């Protein structure tokens, strides 16, 4: 008899534990019944419900627009922020700026949400268009995505050799040309990874959005929360099946980008992943 390999048994048990709830959700999306308890037969009915639910589809669309926009703006601001931090000669200044940068990464979501709620309520009393709603949610998402972009771009900058920009200057490039033709192309893998992370941060966020969204605007997470409080509705299962497929696509895309990123520079790749942790 073959000896049982306990390592593999453990790994299998853990992977089943990690995936069981997700597949459980998806499985019941195809239930013709109305509950997550008994599988009564295969049907697409909940997907049909989902596609007929225009309110939910609009929320889905808005959530994606929000993620797209906030990630785009956060990537732009964060990239130049990283360049700016990198340019400081003194190590102390750089470390101080980096600590400020990381505050929003390590803060609990509720603190970010609560303090942003105070901030936007104050701002909203001066500038009316900043009162709670799409604008406040968008600004919050940009705000909590910026530091992660900085952390993704910074290792690429540190990896870049000064001789590269020196050569460009020697060959007669001005500051702008060095930036657009040398530095930014070099940073591109980091920038793309940063965009990806910002995008998923925005899609995933619940707590911050929950605090700063007023009555008019909802994202998918907030909507799922309020529906889940009312009880089980298999439409959400159908939605999660789609969301899972989408994340699968995103992960595969991210995998290839980060592999590209770290093929020759495995150590840097690891540092980036360390930074990703929240």
């Amino acid at each position, binding site marked *: 008899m073959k000896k049982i390999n306990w*390592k593999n048994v*453990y*790994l299998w048990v*853990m992977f089943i*534990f990690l*995936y069981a*709830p*997700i597949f*459980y*959700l998806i499985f*019941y999306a195809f239930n013709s019944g109305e*509950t*997550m*308890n008994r599988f009564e037969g295969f049907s697409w009915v909940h997907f049909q419900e989902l596609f007929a639910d225009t309110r939910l589809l609009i929320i889905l669309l808005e959530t994606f627009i929000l993620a797209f926009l906030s990630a785009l703006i956060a990537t732009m*601001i964060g990239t*130049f*922020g990283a*360049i*700016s931090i990198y*340019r400081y000669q003194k190590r102390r200044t750089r470390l101080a700026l980096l600590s*400020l940068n990381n*505050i*929003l990464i*390590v*803060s*609990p*979501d*509720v*603190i*970010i*949400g*609560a*303090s942003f709620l*105070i901030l936007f309520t*104050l701002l909203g009393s001066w500038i009316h268009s900043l009162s709670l709603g799409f604008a406040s949610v968008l*600004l919050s998402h*940009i705000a909590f995505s*910026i530091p992660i972009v900085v952390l993704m771009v910074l290792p690429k900058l540190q990896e870049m050799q000064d001789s590269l*920009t020196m050569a460009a200057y020697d060959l007669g490039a001005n*500051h*702008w040309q060095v*930036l657009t033709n040398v530095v930014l192309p070099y940073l591109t893998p980091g920038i793309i990874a940063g965009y990806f992370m910002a995008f998923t941060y925005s899609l*995933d966020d*619940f*707590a911050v959005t*929950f*605090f700063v969204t007023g009555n008019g605007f909802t994202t998918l997470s907030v909507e799922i*929360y309020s529906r*889940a*409080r009312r009880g*089980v509705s298999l439409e959400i299962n159908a*939605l*999660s099946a789609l969301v899972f497929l989408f*994340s699968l696509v995103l992960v595969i895309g991210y995998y290839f980008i980060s*592999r590209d990123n770290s093929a020759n520079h495995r150590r840097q790749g*690891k540092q980036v*992943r*360390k930074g990703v*942790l*929240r």
Partner: protein
Amino acid sequence: MKKINPLLTIPYYLWIGLFVIAPVLLIVYYSFIDIHGNFTLSNYGNYFGSGKYLMMTFNSFLYAFIITFFTVLVSYPMAYFLTKLKHKELWLLLVILPTWVNLLLKAYAFIGIFGIDGSVNHFLSFFGIGPKQILFTDFSFIVVATYIQIPFMIMPIFNALEEINPSVLRASRDLGANEWQTFFKVVMPLSMNGVKSGIQAVFIPSLSLFMLTRLIGGNRVITLGTAIEEHFLVTQNWGMGSTIGVVLIVIMFIVMVITGEKRGHK
């Protein structure tokens, strides 16, 4: 790079001012404001004076501690075994994948699994243990929170294990240590940094998972996060909410100092 147009970097510093420094100052300021808008110390008096808030903080700590403990307990062996696999990067990706599924959806799944008529209860009644109330208990909250945090613990431990120089392990074997001795005397101490950053990534969020306490814990589990959400969004007592927030920030700093990696290593 010698120079960069300041117009490009201004937004970043505006962000630091408006969204990093200002919110912290605001929350500290509001913790000194009572419900009528007057300056007061009564929020802190309330917090430290009444057993209610201190008890809640203690409970919140206890939950976060239990969650972190179980997360480390199951994640360490998993991370260790993962490093032994052939396509480990791919397997690690499979660990990370569940974190990309919205947290609310995962919590929602457990509503079905743990429900009074759900699968776990079906399973239990199969063995003759009648349906039990699982959802809306401390137990379900701890299980779901642990479930959600596991990938965030595995990642840093995995990275720390990967950074261990294989020649150290060979040296240990050459000097006569067996597999267990190598593991406990060499691998474990060298991977402690990963465990520490994992604890950092798990413990603090566990103090503030208010959506889980609402959806899974019923209203029986009240953590610091739940209390903050309640004060800000339900009772509208921002002063008290900010006070709890300041306490949470202080706790966060203490945790970070305790688990902080030694600087200069990056």
